[in-house]
């Protein structure tokens, strides 16, 4: 019952955030100095052309009316049309989203498994040489920007070793090898910083748990080290890791924009940058909305997972 109330409250919050987001995105794009029609046509556009486009886009109506028209169309599944490509934005976004999702899912899987695995290894081998090397590696991984990793990866694996394609994308129909070889570098680069982030957190929370009294009790009861780790330490040590994985979903989306640009990978991030470069504002607007919605839902799921794993949150959540 309590879980249902919690769910309902969070769902309402999610809807609120999405509504607010739509106002914010629409507002920034339409209120910031820089006339939309001029942005689309360029600074040398004739006033007549500007007036014509403004009429076509309905830009002369009051803003709240424009917003309402956009939102109601969006809710009915009409995502508008890309100005530059003269194609429905929905199909453009759907295609790009599919490719980004593959990239993100692979990177996220690598982050979750690699990060938690390395963190556990570091915690159980505390103070040994391997642990120290891992800590150093994590420090470097966190501090180096993704786009620089991407450049290094292209330089080493594509330019010098000629092992992998530098940029681009191959559909699965071209064969698993072509598909995978185009995905390998982007996934590795995308995961690099986040693996370190998750590993560091998992290591410190596992150490904290391993030093706790109930683990001491479990050991005193004569349980094997493996059983202590899996049954007693891990479930509690993983809670912070789940939160940080949710936070990392945001960083992952930011990283995707950069990584897709460097590797010329035709996903949603690349599409957004393209929309910005070409001033394709209708496409940009709805693309931003889709990304934000995905992010909000990811956070929502993370919060649910957290609540299921840690009943105390549900009570605390009621007070917040």
């Amino acid at each position, binding site marked *: 019952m309590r879980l249902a109330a919690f769910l309902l409250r969070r769902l309402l*919050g999610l809807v609120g*955030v999405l509504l*607010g*987001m739509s106002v*914010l*995105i629409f507002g*920034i*794009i339409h209120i*910031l*100095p*820089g006339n*939309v029609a001029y*942005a689309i046509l360029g600074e040398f556009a004739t006033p007549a052309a500007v007036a014509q486009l403004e009429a076509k886009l309905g830009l002369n109506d009051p803003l709240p009316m424009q917003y309402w028209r956009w939102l109601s169309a969006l809710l009915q599944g009409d995502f508008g049309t890309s100005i530059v490509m003269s194609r429905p934005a929905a199909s453009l976004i759907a295609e790009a989203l599919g490719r980004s999702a593959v990239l993100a899912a692979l990177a996220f899987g690598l982050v979750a498994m690699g990060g938690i695995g390395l963190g556990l290894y570091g915690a159980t081998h505390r103070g040994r040489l391997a642990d120290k090397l891992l800590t150093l590696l994590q*420090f*470097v991984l*966190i*501090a*180096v*920007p*993704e*786009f*620089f990793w991407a*450049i*290094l990866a*292209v*330089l080493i694996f594509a*330019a010098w070793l000629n092992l992998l394609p*530098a940029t681009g994308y191959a559909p699965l129909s071209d064969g698993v090898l072509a598909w995978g070889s185009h995905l390998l570098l982007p996934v590795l680069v995308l995961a690099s910083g986040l693996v370190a982030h998750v590993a*560091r*957190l998992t290591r*410190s*929370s596992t*150490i*904290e748990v391993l030093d706790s009294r109930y683990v001491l009790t479990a050991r005193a009861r004569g349980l094997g080290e493996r059983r202590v780790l899996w049954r007693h330490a891990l479930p509690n040590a993983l809670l*912070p890791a789940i*939160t*940080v994985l949710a*936070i990392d979903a*945001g*960083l992952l*989306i*930011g*990283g995707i*924009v*950069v990584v897709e*640009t*460097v590797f010329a990978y035709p996903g949603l991030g690349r599409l*957004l*940058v393209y*929309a*910005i*470069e070409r001033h394709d*504002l209708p496409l*940009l607007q709805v693309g*931003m909305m889709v*990304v*934000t919605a995905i*992010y*909000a839902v990811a*956070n929502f799921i993370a919060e649910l997972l957290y609540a299921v794993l840690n009943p105390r949150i549900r009570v605390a959540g009621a007070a917040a």
Partner: protein
Amino acid sequence: MTAVARSPLRLPSSLVLGAALLGLIAAAAIVGIWLTPYDPAAFAVRDRLQPPSALHPFGTDEFGRDVLSRVLAGAHLSLAAGFGAMAISLAVGVPLGLLAAFHRGVTEELIMRAVDLLISLPPVLLGLLVLAVTPPSLGKTIAAVGLVYVPILVRLTRAVALGLLQEDFVQAARARGEGAVPILWHEILPNAWPPIIVECGLRVTFAILLGSALSFLGLGPQPPASEWGLMIAEGRDFLRQAPWICLAPGLSLCVLLVTVNLVGEGLRERLDPQLSGRAHA
């Protein structure tokens, strides 16, 4: 809050090392605004794409410009992006956080819901959104990055201030009849700054990263500026023939980020020893 009172002699080694390095970088960056081995903007077509040599330690780019000079001339841009953005988030976030803690009710609700909203936009996207419609420039990049970290500082300041408002010394000040401003200024702020500084120290790294990523995407200073992210983006076309165009600013950026990170970790160790065990998301 006794952390501040400890002996100033025991500074963490990472803080000392990081601060020394950061000082060196800052000095080089400031000198580099006016003084570089070559004119960072001067074309020399005959010397284009030269590999590193005694004359050009970092080589030359596709226009024959000296890469070392350009890296030096652009250093202050990355520093400005990181620290400028942090200054903006501090100047906006801390007062809002204090306000939310002090005026519970409608004001708090308004501020915190706005924060919830801003935080639900992934950081790079918030920057992209601000920079999408207007022509990009360094100032706008700094403002956009600053805006990204405002919600985090509001939440942190509010949480710290709420805890402090329960303390006896604040209750005493209230009982003496002191107003909101003196209480916030004399009682809350002096005790709230250590966690805020620690957070900022760690966030500067991310601010520099985000700023350079945005200019890498073409949403920062425009050519012929020698911002490092922009230099890396421009050098990509010559990666095979002249990798030094990308590598020089890229490695410089890494050194700067590691240095700032050292300072941030050092500050955390110095100001908040309880925090050092706990991971910081």
